[in-house]
């Protein structure tokens, strides 16, 4: 990945800073002002970087754009990047370094729930602010945490009724990754399937390193469902989509997912293997809006890489965009001022995937959700869009207006 038009330099403390070019800051007339510091802790290396690389680039690009347009509150924004190497121990170290030593105003960080849960107590302890730009299982209730990605109810309340209605697929078989996300998502799947008069035949969990899905495929064939619901995650689990197509085939059984595509799975499967998978998403490159098209072409030009950007790339721009708007409303980049602005519930941003508005009660994001179907060109056809889906699962359990000091991650009892 190339970062052209970028300057790299190292700060005194060793973090890699991607500051906007001095020329750009001069043109914008903000070079002399004290910068507002943003920390970005993501996995540039290690097994999880497939989710991070586009997001790292999108964060840098969005900050460049803010600086070119005159900065935030008349001050330049400085980005400090830390590579957490897909290892939570580094999330812990770099979060502390960013907050205590580099004195950043906000941290945009974390892909996995476990990395977020390592950093969140530190952010609470050192009174910082954490933007978590990833889809996750929901339920985090913490004033110092903002979630900008999708939570299960947002996706499933659109996806399940659609699949059951359009395809008459009442009997479902659920496969999920064996960690929090998969467990909680599968519970929501069961609940919403039953609420819609369907039947959940079985739920199976798979550790993230499983590549042989033949036993599961045999069990699926024995159970004869109409639809297989997948919340499988990561590089190894891509094997399922391939083995499913080879043994059963999507023409014989519907396959729908909450996670397909976020790890750019469609680029790694053959046209037939990817064709026809249904999913609910808040952003795909194929969205036919001007905002989406312009974001995709800008990021591709910025990185010099014309491949698919996808949801996790867009999350980077979304997170920075929402934070910047909150800073503008607060008139002050310090974490507590930004939190006060977010708590009022009026932070809304028009982004590449439509309108994002942060709910003051939960600090989770309401967004448009689209039902899309994988096609033979490693892209997606948009089937139906649902406007402004709220993070209903988290709203059920979290009320930061009533309990501003709450820091719990709730698990929805179903």
């Amino acid at each position, binding site marked *: 990945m190339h970062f052209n038009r970028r300057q790299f330099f190292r700060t005194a403390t060793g973090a890699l800073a991607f500051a906007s070019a001095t020329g750009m800051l001069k043109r914008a007339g903000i070079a002399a002002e004290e910068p507002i510091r943003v920390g970005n802790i993501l996995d*540039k290396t290690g097994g999880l970087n497939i989710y991070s690389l586009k997001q790292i680039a999108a964060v840098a690009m969005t900050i460049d754009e803010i600086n070119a347009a005159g900065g935030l509150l008349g001050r330049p924004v400085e980005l400090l990047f830390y*590579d957490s190497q897909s290892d939570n121990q580094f999330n812990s170290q*770099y979060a*502390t*370094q960013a907050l*205590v*030593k580099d004195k950043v105003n906000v941290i945009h960080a974390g892909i996995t729930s476990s990395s977020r*849960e390592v950093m969140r*107590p530190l952010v609470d302890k050192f009174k910082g602010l954490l933007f978590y730009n990833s889809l996750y299982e929901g339920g985090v209730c913490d004033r110092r945490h903002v979630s900008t990605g999708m939570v299960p109810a947002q996706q499933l309340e659109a996806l399940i009724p659609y699949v059951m209605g359009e395809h008459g697929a009442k009997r479902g078989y659920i496969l999920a990754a064996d960690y929090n996300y998969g467990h909680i998502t599968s519970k929501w799947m069961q609940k919403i399937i039953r609420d819609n008069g369907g039947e959940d035949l079985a739920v199976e*969990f798979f550790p993230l390193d499983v590549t042989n899905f033949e036993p599961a495929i045999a069990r699926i064939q024995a159970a004869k469902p109409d639809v297989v619901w997948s919340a499988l995650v990561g590089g190894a689990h891509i094997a399922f989509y391939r083995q499913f197509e080879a043994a059963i085939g999507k023409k014989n059984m519907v396959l729908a997912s909450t996670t397909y595509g976020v790890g750019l799975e469609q680029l790694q499967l053959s046209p037939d293997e990817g064709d026809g998978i249904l999913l609910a998403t808040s952003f795909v490159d194929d969205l036919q809006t001007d905002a989406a098209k312009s974001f995709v072409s800008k990021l591709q030009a910025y990185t010099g890489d014309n491949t698919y950007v996808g949801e996790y790339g867009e999350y980077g721009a979304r997170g920075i965009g929402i934070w910047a708007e909150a800073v503008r409303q607060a008139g002050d980049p310090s974490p507590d001022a930004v939190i006060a602005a977010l708590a009022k519930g009026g932070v809304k941003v028009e982004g590449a995937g439509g309108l994002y508005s942060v709910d003051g009660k939960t600090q989770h994001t309401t967004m448009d959700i689209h039902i899309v179907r994988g096609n033979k060109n490693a892209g997606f056809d948009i089937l139906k869009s649902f406007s402004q889906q709220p993070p209903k699962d988290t709203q059920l359990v979290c009320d930061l207006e009533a309990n501003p000091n709450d820091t719990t991650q709730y698990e929805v009892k179903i």
Partner: protein
Amino acid sequence: MAGERPAWWWWASIGTALVVLMAAPSYLDIADQLDISIIFILALLALSMGFLWGQGGMLSFGQTAFFGLGGYSYAVLALNTGETTSAFFIAIALSMAFALAVGYFMIYGRISDIYLSVITLVVTLILEKGIRATSGDQYVIGSVRLNGQNGIPTVPSLQLPWNPGTELFIDGVFYLSAALLVLVYVGLRLLLASSFGRVLVGIRENERRVELLGYDARRYKLAAFVLAGGIAGLAGVLYGVWGNFVSPAMFHLNQAAQVVIWVIVGGKSWLIGPVAGTAVVQYLSNWLGTQGVGQVSLWLGVVLMIFVLVFREGLLPTAALAIAWVRRRLGRREA
């Protein structure tokens, strides 16, 4: 080095090190203290492996099993009881008990060299897979969810035993881990100078001969294995206290690989070797992570290959050899 009582200069350097370590937090900010404490904690883990391998001749790839077990036991006990002092000691005891079981199984089964390495590695892999599979809400010990892949967050900080209301902050963890590292190092060094240590080293050199002298080699090896398990467990507890989290990654193959790298880089024949190796390698990967130089594992792989092929003895012993060589050369010239 084993067998001799430490010389005065050794005690002097320990004393100096202690003074420096105890004074250090006043000159370091919190982030640096955090970075350095984790090196001390991981150095304890490396020390447990280096002691077993370098002094006892047992190459255990699975010290991470006891490391992870210590961390998890502490987390579960402390979260359940709300009391950390007893959790601290019970967690170490549990790691030792587990080491006793595994060690008895292997050592009294006369399993030797490479097979011992394989079994310890497999043990840590089983624990990792097992812990990873506990994401469901049915996996609860007392009131604590094991939480699978995500691990347990909110592991309590250590409270002062005489005043449970006060929790150790980052500087406290720094003092504690520094002090424990020095204590364990000095303890092991003195142990090696004792008759137990001499027998242990004798077994490493020639097990048959020591047995013919009437010692039961298995008992000595098992004792060393349990001791090392306890040290690894201690490191695990401190790891949990340090970051307030424990996760299945503590048992992972990569973690196990890192321990081996630390020991190789520092040199296993000296007790201080693993400590130095941990410091060098951890500092390196921490620094590489902020340099944007690409895959850290690539550099670690290169380091490991170079050390195995070229500097077999590790950094410190190699440096000592080099110094001795230069001295000899100089001495000859003068003569």
